[in-house]
């Protein structure tokens, strides 16, 4: 969690969007769970795409899960991408996470990955959530976002 602690210490830092994760203390992804069928969505939404109901509650997600699939983004995306220059390839994947609530199903969350070496990304391997610096705004504000790294990695 050293990166999280580091990010939270930066004066004027803010998340890339509100409502994606709790922050700066005890960071967890925020999701919705359907009270009718248990489907969990990320980020939160007010209705259930599975059963069409609209009785949803906010839940947090586990910070460790398993990598379901991955790729490496090898070229700089066009706007609205607003990552730091110069461009560096980054990992992207889906991580299967349990919800921290009874009756809420697990969910596969799409995320940037802090690891971009193909050999170190393995389907089924454990991954840990971290909140990482993403870019710096024109006014010097550090923008942070969520990411996953291989568990137990350096």
């Amino acid at each position, binding site marked *: 969690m050293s990166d999280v602690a580091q990010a939270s210490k930066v004066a004027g830092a803010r998340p*890339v*969007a509100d409502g*994606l994760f709790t922050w700066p203390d005890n960071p967890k992804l925020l*999701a919705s769970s359907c009270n009718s069928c248990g*489907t*969990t*969505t*990320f*980020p939160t939404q007010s209705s259930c*795409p*599975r059963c069409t109901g609209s009785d949803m509650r906010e839940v947090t997600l586990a910070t460790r899960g398993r990598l*379901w*699939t*991955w*790729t*490496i*983004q*090898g*070229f700089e*995306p*066009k*706007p*609205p*991408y*607003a*990552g730091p220059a110069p461009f560096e390839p*980054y990992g*992207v*994947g*889906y991580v*299967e996470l349990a919800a921290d609530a009874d009756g809420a*199903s*697990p*969910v*596969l*969350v*799409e*995320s*940037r990955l802090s690891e971009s070496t*193909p050999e170190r990304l393995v*389907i089924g391997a454990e991954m840990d959530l971290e909140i990482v610096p*993403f870019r710096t705004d024109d006014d010097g504000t550090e923008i942070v*976002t969520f990411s996953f790294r291989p568990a137990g990695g350096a």
Partner: protein
Amino acid sequence: MDVAIVGIGMHPFGRHPGVSGLEQGAYAVRQALADAGIGWSEVECAFGGSASAGNADSLVSNLGLTGVPFVNVYNGCATGGSALAMADRAIRSGDYDLTLALGFDKHARGAFNANPESAGIGRWYGETGLMLTTQFFGMKIQRYLHDHGLPADILAKVAAKAFRNGSLNENAWRRKPLSEEEILAAPMLSNPLTQYMFCNPGEGAVALILASADKATRYTSHPVYLKSVSFKTRRFGSFEVFSPWLSPERAPGPTVEAAAAAFEAAGIGPEDIDVAQIQDTESGAEIMHMAETGLCKDGDQEALLRSGATEIGGKMPINTDGGCLANGEPIGASGLRQVYENVLQLRGAAGARQVPGQPKTAFTHVYGAPGISACTVMSV
């Protein structure tokens, strides 16, 4: 009322500086009219569209103000397929005898850049670099190869076949054959897919003239019958592009339902198909769609590709015109290009890339954002 395709027209695919998408559309319509031996004033009803090159119905100021009802279709990757489905229904309903389906497009260079808000997703998704079709394709085939024990080098086989077939197609964009080694050595854009395993957004247009089957021979000596057209959208649990999350509960993609419906309506099965054009936005898509359409089983693709079964001379020829990989993807036109190719193949008029043995049945399949698929079954 059965439906026949009696006229086909195409503006070559590729890049055409100074020629608008609408102009390419008009060119394709005139080619199709000439092929059917009719004038524009004989077309009774028209359906067409593009994703980013304008409204198809504005073409009446170029083709002629005949009062024809002309419906604009704006349906992403299914634009051409949807236009065809409606042109087909317009005849089956008994209201019309002669209709037009048109698709054209003209896109900027490079990968499509999508707007998160227009897809109902927060801006953060695009801002942090998650909203790329190329990424999705990489992740989807990565998981598919893992699930079915397939090696990544078969992705190069698909691309090499596409460029080999494209080299035999005068309307294709990429006409230079590339070896599997060159394809594997190209820059890795999104693991496991290299640059030459992806198609490029491009330009082009295709027009089709449809007639009620009982009148088809007035217009052509080689009518090709449109046995069925089906169009489906995704179900919950399908793995689709621009998904910030997925359910662990997996459902088949929209292709599975669209293909099954097309085969059922046509009264034949995938095993009866002599030539198929299936969506190959990238190499992995062709591999996954071979199974989703029912042309083979999951995991059988490696043996089929290594044995040459999907080559023009093989037992299951796929993407004989070079597919999206060699033709590029003008979104509105792409699905109708497949139908155009099948008409040539079923007429026996595909020249250097003609499937041997006089094919009698053909299949097309498009797939795209945000989880849509359209399929056709054709026969002579």
